[in-house]
């Protein structure tokens, strides 16, 4: 294994005549906190879909923890260690918060092969779900249906589902979208605290939180990677300033 959690080689994604991703090269080392930024329509969420196997790229290779995905879909991608949160909150609306997490914890690498877990409650699954419940701070909403949570709580639960699935690598698609600044800061602190030792690839719009959180940043503009590097280098990069930060008003 070459130590890369995610490696993309020449990924091209076309929808009809429109080219959304145009030869994306990206490698993310295991254990890294990486942020993906770019203006609206740059193809960030599409790139997430490609990494998570939800969309099959028109061309190019996706290598997850040293194994090539070959367009085998989201189930295989998640078995290769990819966990995902969604841009639109994506929990199981009519299940309680705890049951949401129990469903996710059933998929942790240690539990996955135990088929009898599907037939009877397992103490270890419940324990893992309970731990995540505590970590994301939803203890008091244990039995609340997910649909009845507040917005920030739903986002936390979305993160919690990804966490409880035990994935080594987490793709977080704008976890702070639509939040106030204070809520966003709390969310980033939560992500930082709960993803210790895992690889994180994060899409984010709020520049300040990105620069404070990520070890490396990739800037995606119109389907191509403009720059990858440490936050300071990105901030100083003239191409990035021209293409993105100028528009962002930093």
């Amino acid at each position: 294994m070459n130590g890369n959690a995610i490696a993309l080689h020449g990924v091209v994604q076309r929808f009809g005549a429109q080219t959304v991703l145009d030869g994306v090269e990206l490698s993310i080392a295991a254990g890294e906190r990486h942020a993906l930024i770019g203006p609206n329509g740059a193809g960030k969420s599409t790139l997430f879909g490609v990494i998570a196997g939800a969309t099959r790229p028109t061309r190019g290779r996706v290598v997850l923890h040293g194994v090539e995905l070959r367009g085998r879909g989201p189930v295989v991608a998640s078995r290769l260690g990819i966990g995902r949160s969604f841009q639109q909150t994506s929990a199981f609306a009519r299940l309680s918060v705890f049951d949401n997490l129990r469903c996710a914890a059933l998929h942790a690498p240690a539990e996955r092969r135990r088929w009898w877990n599907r037939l009877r409650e397992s103490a270890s699954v419940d324990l893992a779900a309970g731990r995540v419940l505590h970590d994301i701070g939803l203890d008091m909403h244990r039995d609340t249906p997910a649909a009845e949570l507040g917005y920030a709580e739903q986002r936390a639960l979305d993160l919690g589902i990804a966490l409880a699935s035990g994935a080594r690598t987490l793709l977080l698609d704008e976890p702070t979208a639509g939040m106030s600044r204070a809520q966003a800061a709390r969310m980033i602190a939560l992500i930082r605290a709960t993803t210790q030792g895992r690889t994180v690839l994060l899409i984010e719009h709020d520049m300040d939180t990105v620069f404070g959180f990520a070890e490396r940043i990739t800037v995606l503009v119109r389907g191509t990677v403009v720059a990858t590097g440490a936050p300071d280098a990105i901030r100083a990069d003239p191409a990035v300033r021209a293409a993105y930060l100028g528009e962002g008003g930093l």
Partner: protein
Amino acid sequence: MRSRMLAAGLARGALFAACVALPAWLWPHGAVLGYLAQTAALVVLALSYNLQLGTTGLLSFGHAAFAGLGAFAAAHWFNHFGGPLPLLPLVGGMAGAGFGFAAGLLATRRSGTAFAMITLGLGECVAAAAWSVPAWFGGIGGVPIDRASGTPWGGWHFGAPVQAYTVIAAWCIASAWAMHVLTRMPLARLANAVRDNPARVAALGTDPRRVRLAMVTCASFFAGVAGTLTLIDVEIATPDSVSMARSATVLIAAVIGGTGTFFGPAAGAAVLTLLSIVVAGVSRAWALYLGVLFVAIVVAAPRGIAGIVQALAQASRRGAPAAERWRVLCAVAACVFWGVAIVCAAELGYAWRFAQDDGAGFAFGAWRIDADTPAGWAVACSAAGIGTLLWGWRARFAPGGQAGKREDVR
């Protein structure tokens, strides 16, 4: 908390078992047993249907096909190999599960409308096959069995209705218990997750199709059991048992009862058999009442009878706000008045219509109301007016109004 929920579950289970067993014990007459046996079979079928609709979110239009196929398989098995009658539902269940698995391989590739359409097509195929392959399905006559011809158990030959009903009731209770256990398993929780958000389940690493297939197979097993219970009751498997009408019946029963709770569909099945047997004996308009009830439930009480019972229990608990009580009271009264209005109008209409055909007097019911005079229609109109007025009042009780809105959003 947990022990209280366990106690509530036990109480519900005991109530269910009592509903199945007690009436037969108190009034062991042919008609009562026939009604109970039909109800028990439909209860199992509706509960199995809800494993798909409520638990997994799969709307099927061909569920009766698996019940019917199970019944035919069981009938052929019984005629060829015999064996004890009490174990026959197992044969029907296995056959139902086999056909369900095969159909599920195709149907569960998709969910939502596509799944519904595929099941509609498959159900239609089975119904057509039932008429066009008389060698297997027995043509119009169906495949008869003699339930007393099996291996006797402890002196019981199961020819007598009471003995047959004992088998049916035992299987009904056992199946309901097994399905209840199934809906408490992590697998069923995963099926709930697939219902709510299949893409997320796929992202977690479980193929939603496999979960759907597992649930469809389980549901088809119990459908096969239900079909065999009908077979034991009427001693014949007919092509009607795989018809679209039967599939519609079970769908209506499940929705009327409420798909959100476990025992809801059982209540729906009981109401539906009550309408189709007891009311059908009194009035020709029973199918109309069923249709009106179905539409009313879908529009006004999407959680079905189970939801209505929960709302009543909420309102009658100690310390419930007065506004909530008034709200529920108004709703119940409005429903009663509307019911009177619809029954009056329908009965008058039918009496008028058939009186013209038969040339008899324009009269119906115990009161001998003349359908030609305006009195009956006046009753219907005023009842409808009062019902509408009460329903309007109901909206005034503020906290309930909010609850209604929240339900709509969900």
